[in-house]
């Protein structure tokens, strides 16, 4: 087995471990109100941390492409809703910035 294959399978095991353990040892129904809010707020905080500074670091040579792309996605999502159109709007915008604007 090549070392890359070992790494891939070890990463897969780690990811599955993190995902399955909470399903096996379930937290139960009567969790405190604070913990419930904590779990409810998690997705929104996660999305914020996943976007920033990821949009800047994802285009090291031209951070404007990432920022313009995400802005285009957010604007499209605000006006039209959905996820398909925002993703295409973002790819198109990032492509235009990468193609025609360099800093």
């Amino acid at each position, binding site marked *: 087995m090549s070392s890359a294959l070992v*790494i891939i399978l070890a990463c897969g095991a780690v990811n599955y471990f993190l995902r399955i*353990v909470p399903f096996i040892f379930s937290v139960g129904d009567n969790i405190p109100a604070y913990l419930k809010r904590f779990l409810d707020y998690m997705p929104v905080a996660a*999305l914020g941390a996943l976007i920033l500074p990821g949009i800047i670091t994802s285009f090291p040579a031209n951070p404007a492409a990432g920022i313009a792309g995400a802005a285009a996605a957010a604007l499209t999502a605000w006006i039209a809703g959905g996820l398909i159109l925002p993703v295409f709007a973002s790819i198109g915008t990032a492509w235009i910035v990468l193609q025609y604007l360099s800093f």
Partner: protein
Amino acid sequence: MKTEDRENSLNDFIAGARSAIPIFIGYFTTSVAFGILALSSGLTPFEAVLFSMTNLTGAAQFMAINLISSGAVIGEIVVSVFLMNLRYFIMSASLARKLGLKNNIDKAVISFGVTDEVFSVASLKSGAVSDSFMYGLQLTAWAGWAAGTLAGVTMGSFLPRTLQDAMSGALFALFAALLVPEIKKGYRALFLSVSAGVLNTMLYYMWHISAGWSIVISMLAVTAAGAALFRNEESSVEQGVEEAG
């Protein structure tokens, strides 16, 4: 009665698959980029596709191939992936609570398919979420991720370089588009997401904390503060109706 149950399951499965179509597209385009980058990092096409099929994780896979190509040892890579994906533990805990699965096979399969986007769609869906809905949602998302890598390694370097580069932002477009409807609902989502993003940026640039750690710290710190700060239900009418219903 039995036929009705089966029909309901099928309808839920289709509803799940349908709500995963945007995820499929977002995953596919991002995963094409992964396939192309994986080859340039020295993985074989088989290894790249296997990586996506067995791991089903976005940023951590990109991070792992970067580490592989820079000659990092296995322990380093595994620990980084563990830290970057600690959030799955919290997401799974939240989802397990919402889904309330009884069957062990359902638990084993559905837990495998927990991702940021699947979690967001399932946990933001109002009302009960059935196991059939989850299967439809997750199978479609997984297919998009696996097929994207396959397409990426097949296409190789045929794509124009600039278009390849533009695709690496597709994942963030997906995150942004998922966040916008939440922000429309009330100011809390805006406050929490911006705080987490700003804190994460500070941790990353000012204290040079690795991307995986800084995401975990930002999520935990902002959510803990938010849950302590916002004691009452959100005051907006829309939210109030939702909570009551």
